[in-house]
């Protein structure tokens, strides 16, 4: 890219710490700096993403043949349960919290989060939660799926399931503390002059996300505590043998876990709304519509949970009510997709890795959205519920939406976070491999589900072999696709060309300080000169005022 070439530093200069660059050891401390915590969250999340990815690759290896020959069916259920739980609770949720931690104070011109110590506590709950969760596999592996429906979840294994519950409770508490912190920070700590409607859209989506976290997560915690009582104390909240009701657990579980889908993707909806205008040099199309649609999604997201239960014990009127609310949630989601498309239209699109991933996001998320509307239609859902069609649908949402969104955010904000540019060529290779692998893996699953392959099985009817082999090849391509990313990120963090303050010529506040930002973000309170998306009005973002770099630390990075 043109601007990258301009910015390349002289090749011979050794890597230098500059701006607010941190020593690597700082990332292993109980730091209260939101930037350190943000990176801690993201790196920890990524490590768990790799673990979840290894599990996914094992699942696909098993499913390459109809027989259970790679692992035993018992082990398969444990792997499948761990894959789902790790990916959702230890990757997507923490990485979203990491982005929010890093970006919110910088975007609103604050020096830190509202409750810095609480913030650090929230992060430091993630590693123990993760260690617990992964270790649960080795003590009577929980094998009832990430949904852990009783009675199956209370009669497959005592210790493993107990550890699993504890891990989610710890992770959930962390999420609640984070959500509280984000909301208060955004509501109370904006720089003077920044009204709510001058916030970048990432902040709007995080406000909506925080609301969902605060309303939904306590309900999940309650459900899991009751489940733990059933497990350890012999109570019968969900056990029909003692007068309990297993369907009650499903209601409580999905009351959190459907909104959780929006907790997973809303932060990335916000991020893409901030990335596209920068790389297309055009204001976001319909700022208010996109901001309000986040809230519409989060409100509607709270009243659609029973669409996961159309085939369980739900009375007919309930099915109809939840069908209609679920259908309507497509409208605010559509507003966002059309808004992003209209932002691209007539823009000046630069094919940076960040832009490629955001286009991949729109392309794949749209497919997931459309199948979501289909699934909302009760008569059709009755056929495909608990089949591979659903697996395809939610991977198009969670991989196509959330993971593409995370990669996009990393390519976009990496210069700010580390002070170094990433390699764009390998970024594009990463995108192409991920995009091909993702579609090859999950597209055939639609047909598998429609034709009659149920999910969560270690063995299947041999007529489904071909499509499963295709999906497995796709999964291997996806596994390989992470290698260029990891090498690129690690190498660039240390040796990448030095990033200027504002490599993408963006207008939001986080780009008005050094890369990486000073310890307290801004040396003096930043002044809002433009709105976050005022492209095309002749504002030329300042290119590296030299005084920002006058305060550089000049000694080499400690290693």
């Amino acid at each position, binding site marked *: 890219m*043109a601007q990258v070439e301009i910015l390349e530093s002289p090749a011979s200069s050794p890597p230098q710490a500059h701006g607010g660059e941190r020593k690597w050891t700082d990332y292993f401390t109980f730091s209260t700096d939101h930037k350190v915590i943000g990176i801690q969250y993201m790196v920890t999340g990524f490590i768990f993403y790799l673990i979840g990815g290894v599990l996914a690759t094992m699942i696909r290896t098993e499913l390459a043949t109809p027989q259970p020959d790679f692992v035993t*069916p018992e082990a398969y259920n444990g792997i499948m349960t761990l894959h789902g739980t790790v990916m959702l609770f230890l990757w997507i949720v923490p990485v979203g919290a990491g982005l929010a931690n890093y970006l919110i104070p910088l975007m609103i011109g604050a020096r830190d989060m509202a409750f810095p110590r609480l913030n650090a506590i929230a992060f430091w709950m993630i590693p123990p939660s993760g260690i617990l969760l992964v270790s649960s596999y080795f003590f009577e592996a929980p*094998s009832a799926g990430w949904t852990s429906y009783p*009675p*199956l979840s209370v*009669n497959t294994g*005592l210790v493993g399931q107990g550890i699993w519950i504890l891990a989610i409770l710890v992770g959930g508490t962390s999420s609640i503390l984070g959500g509280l912190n984000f909301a208060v920070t955004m509501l109370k700590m904006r720089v003077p002059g920044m009204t709510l409607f001058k916030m970048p859209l990432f902040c709007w989506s995080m406000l909506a996300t925080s609301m969902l976290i605060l309303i939904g997560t306590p309900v999940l915690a309650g459900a899991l505590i009751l489940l733990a009582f*059933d497990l350890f104390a*012999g109570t019968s909240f969900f056990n*029909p*043998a003692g007068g*309990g009701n297993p*369907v009650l657990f499903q209601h409580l579980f999905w009351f959190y876990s459907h909104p959780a889908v929006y907790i997973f993707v809303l932060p990335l909806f916000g991020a893409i709304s901030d990335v596209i205008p920068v790389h*297309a*040099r*055009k*204001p976001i*199309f*319909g*700022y208010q*519509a996109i901001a309000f649609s986040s809230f519409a999604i989060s409100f509607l997201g709270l009243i659609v949970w029973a669409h996961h239960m159309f085939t*369980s014990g739900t009375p007919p009127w309930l099915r109809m009510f939840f*069908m209609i609310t679920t*259908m309507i949630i*497509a409208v605010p989601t*559509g*507003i966002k997709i059309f*808004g992003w*498309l*209209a932002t*691209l239209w*007539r*823009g*000046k*699109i630069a*094919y940076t890795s960040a832009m490629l991933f955001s*286009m991949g996001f*729109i*392309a794949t998320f*749209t497919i997931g959205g*459309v*199948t979501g*509307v289909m699934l909302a*239609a*009760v*008569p*059709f859902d*009755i*056929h495909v*519920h*608990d*089949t591979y069609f659903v697996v395809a649908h939610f991977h198009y949402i969670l991989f196509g939406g959330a993971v593409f969104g995370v990669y996009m955010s990393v390519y976009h904000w990496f210069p700010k976070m580390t002070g170094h540019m990433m390699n764009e060529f390998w970024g594009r290779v990463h995108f192409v491999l991920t995009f091909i692998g993702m579609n090859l893996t999950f597209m055939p699953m*639609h047909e598998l589900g*429609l*034709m009659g392959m*149920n999910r969560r*099985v270690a*063995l299947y009817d041999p007529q489904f072999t071909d499509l499963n082999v295709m999906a497995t090849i796709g999964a291997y391509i996806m596994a390989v696709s992470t290698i260029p990313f990891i090498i690129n990120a690690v190498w660039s963090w240390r040796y990448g060309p030095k990033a200027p303050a504002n490599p993408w010529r963006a207008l939001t506040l986080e780009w008005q300080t050094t890369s990486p930002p000073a310890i307290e973000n801004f040396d003096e309170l930043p002044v809002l000169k433009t709105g976050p998306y005022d*492209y095309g*009005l002749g504002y030329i973002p300042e290119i590296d005022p030299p005084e920002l770099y006058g305060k550089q630390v000049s000694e080499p990075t400690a290693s």
Partner: protein
Amino acid sequence: MKIPSSILTMLAGVTLTLVSLWYGQNHGLMPVAASHEAELVDELFDAMMVISVGLVILVEGVLIIAAIRFRRRDGDETDGPHIEGNVPLEILWTSIPTVIVLGISVYSFSLYQQMGGLNLSNQAADAGAVEVAYASDNSSNSGHLASAGIGLTQGMGDQPPVAVNVKALQYAFVFTYPESGVISGELKVPANRGVNLSMEAQDVIHAFWVPELRLKQDVVPGETTELSFIATREGTYPIVCAELCGPYHGAMRSQIQVQSPDEFDAWMQSQIASQDNAVETVAAAPAAERSDADYLAPLAQPLNLDVEADALAQLQAPAHSHEHPHYQMAARID
């Protein structure tokens, strides 16, 4: 000469519509439709496919065209036009999807009604419309009314529906015809006549799914769920458990055989005859090999309940003695 863009747009629109209409009818993504309900579901699916394919092509098409037409030229450091929005356009793309999803909702609702989704036996009984055939006297759950499922449709023919009690357990389905007491490991039903399944689970949640019937219903312990359908196409189709029920969930399968009414009656008569001859036939059904106590033992153990599994079994079937546990289940069901 340049072709005006309005004409190009119109042509693109027409092509898009034709392609989605064609693909929506010719996707070939569904297995054969073997029931009245399946035809209704396929109708809905085809309609949704037309809309979905159109929408996906539209979005991906706009994305690709934008990516090509509006790519940044080398050395161009300027911004695009300052366009913050377009209220009429935004209203348009809010209202069209609203109309579409409400339309799909209404359409789904009416299909659901035609499938009998709103006619569960407890409601139907209130309305006095449908006589429920499955609640025979000595069934352990007589008097229980289905709380969920798909009920009977109006006009399922003159004949009363064939009632079948379904027991789901790890990892099998057991089918009992309460009128004759016949027990079978696979489901046989006559074509073109209503079938009413009344389903119970023994241990964990299972789900009864026949892809060719497009019907699925969870079978939940402690609850009776119901599924009614009219199979229209003779043949043998898989019955699949669709709710994770343990390690061998993938192996929990059975078969449904849709037969001509004559074949079905002949089969039923032969079953009744052999049942009269030897009670062992009943026990030969795969699930009848084990007693209730055997089934409940794994449930009682991890719960650390201070009760013997036998006692639990007694709770469930208080009327029967434990002297003949081998036949207990058969006795309880018929």
